[in-house]
C-alpha cells in the first residue's frame, strides 16, 4: 500500500507503521495528529527521539540501559551490595525485580536467552562478560532470574553448569503459583514445582 499522500506525509506514515503494534491505519491516524499539533510539541517529540538514541546505550558493566559511555544508576549506587548479582534476560526484567524491593545487589543483563531454533547460543549473549565480572568484582552469589520458559530455563541450566565449578553460590528463582490465582487452573508443571518447593509452615 503506497503513496496516496504526498512525499513527507507518506514518509511519516511509513516510519510510524514500523513501530511495534502500529498498523497502517494507526500510523495514518498518528501522522494526521502530528500534522495538527503545535510545531513546538512535534519538535519536542522529535528531539526526545534523537536524544534517546544519542545519549542512551548499554551500561558498560551490566548491560542495563544507561547513558552512553557510563554505568547505569544501579551499578553506580554505592548502597548496593557488590557481592551479589542477579542475572536477567532483558533490561525490562530489572524493572520487574526492582519493583519487589527484595533485592539489593547488582544485575547482569544477558540480552536474550539460548534459543537454538533462532540460532542464539551462549556466544550471542553476554555470558563471557558475566564470567569476567565474577572474577573482577569478587562476586560470591549469582541469582539466575531468567524467564521460566523453555529458553530461559535452558539458559539457566547452561549458566549453572558454567558457574558452579567456580565455587560461588548459584541459585535460581523459585517457580510456583501466582499469588491470587486458583489451584484449579494451575498447569501440571507449575503446580508440580510448587509442591516440590513447598515450605514448612508454623515454627
Amino acid at each position: 500500500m503506497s503513496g496516496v499522500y504526498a512525499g513527507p506525509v507518506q514518509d511519516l506514515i511509513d516510519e510510524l507503521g514500523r513501530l511495534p503494534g502500529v498498523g497502517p491505519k494507526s500510523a495514518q491516524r498518528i501522522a494526521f495528529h502530528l500534522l495538527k499539533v503545535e510545531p513546538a510539541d512535534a519538535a519536542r517529540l522529535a528531539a526526545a527521539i534523537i536524544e534517546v538514541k544519542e545519549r542512551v546505550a548499554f551500561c558498560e558493566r551490566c548491560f542495563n540501559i544507561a547513558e552512553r559511555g557510563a554505568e547505569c544508576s544501579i551499578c553506580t549506587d554505592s548502597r548496593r551490595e557488590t557481592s551479589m548479582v542477579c542475572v536477567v534476560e532483558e533490561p525490562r526484567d530489572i524493572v520487574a525485580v526492582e519493583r519487589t524491593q527484595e533485592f539489593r545487589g547488582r544485575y547482569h543483563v544477558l540480552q536474550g536467552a539460548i534459543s537454538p531454533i533462532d540460532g542464539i547460543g551462549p556466544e550471542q549473549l553476554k555470558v563471557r562478560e558475566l564470567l569476567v565480572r565474577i572474577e573482577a568484582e569478587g562476586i560470591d552469589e549469582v541469582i539466575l532470574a531468567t524467564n521460566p520458559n523453555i529458553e530461559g530455563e535452558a539458559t539457566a541450566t547452561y549458566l549453572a553448569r558454567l558457574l558452579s565449578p567456580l565455587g560461588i553460590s548459584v541459585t535460581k528463582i523459585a517457580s510456583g503459583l501466582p499469588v491470587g490465582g486458583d489451584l484449579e487452573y494451575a498447569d501440571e508443571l507449575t503446580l508440580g514445582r510448587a509442591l516440590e518447593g513447598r515450605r514448612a509452615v508454623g515454627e
Partner: protein
Amino acid sequence: MSLYRDSGVVLRTFKLGEADRIVSIMTRNNGKVRAVAKGVRKTRSKFGARLEPSSHVNLQLYRTRGDLDIVTQAETVDRFPNLRTDLDRFSRASAMLEAVDQLAQESEVNRRLYEMLVRALRTVADTESPLVAAGFFWKVLSLEGFEPFLDACVSCGGEPVVAFDLHEGGVLCQSCRRGRAISPEALALMRQILGGQLGAALNEPISAATNEVDHLAGEAMEHHLERRLRSLGVLGQS
C-alpha cells in the same frame, strides 16, 4: 466461526504484541496449525507452561477467517520436564522441532509425521541415546521419499562401499567415490536405523560412529529442506 479439537506438538512460538504468542503446532488431524494464544506470557495465564515448544497437548481452537486460529483451551498429554533442564536433550529436541516446522505444511494432514515426532520426543526424554535426532531425521527423510540406498554402490553396484553422497542418494564404492567418507561402523548404524532395527541403534552409546551418523543426518535433512537448520551446532559443544 467454529471451534474444533485436536492434539498436537508445539513446534515454535513467536511473541505477539504485549502478552500473546503465535504458536506453531504440528497437529494430528489438521496438519501444521498456526494459532494465537492470548495472554500466555502473563504470569496468571490459564495456559501456563502448556504451550511451550515440545509440549504435547490436547487443544481446543477457534477457527477464524484469517490465517491464524485462536487457542481457547489446552490440556497436557505429555510433558517432558527434563528437556528443560538438560541441554543435550533440549538441543536434540530443538533440532527435531525445527525440522518438522520446516517440513510440515499448513492444513496438510500428515499423521505419520505427527506420530513420529511424538514418539521421538518421548524417546529423547526417556533415554540418553545420542542417535534419537539422527534416527528421527533418517526416518522422516524416508517418509518424504528420500531414503538413501545403502546396500551397495549406488552407481555400479560394487562393494565395499566407502563414501556417502547426498546428490547420488546413497553409498559409493572406492572407484566411484564422491561426497564424504563413511566408516563401516557408521554405515552399520545407518543400515540398522533404516532397516527396521531402530531400537538396537538407539541403544548404542556415544562414539565416533554415532557422531558421524548424527552429522550425516543433519546434513541430509538440510540438503532436503534446502536450508540450514539453526538448531544444529548452536549447542553442539556443550
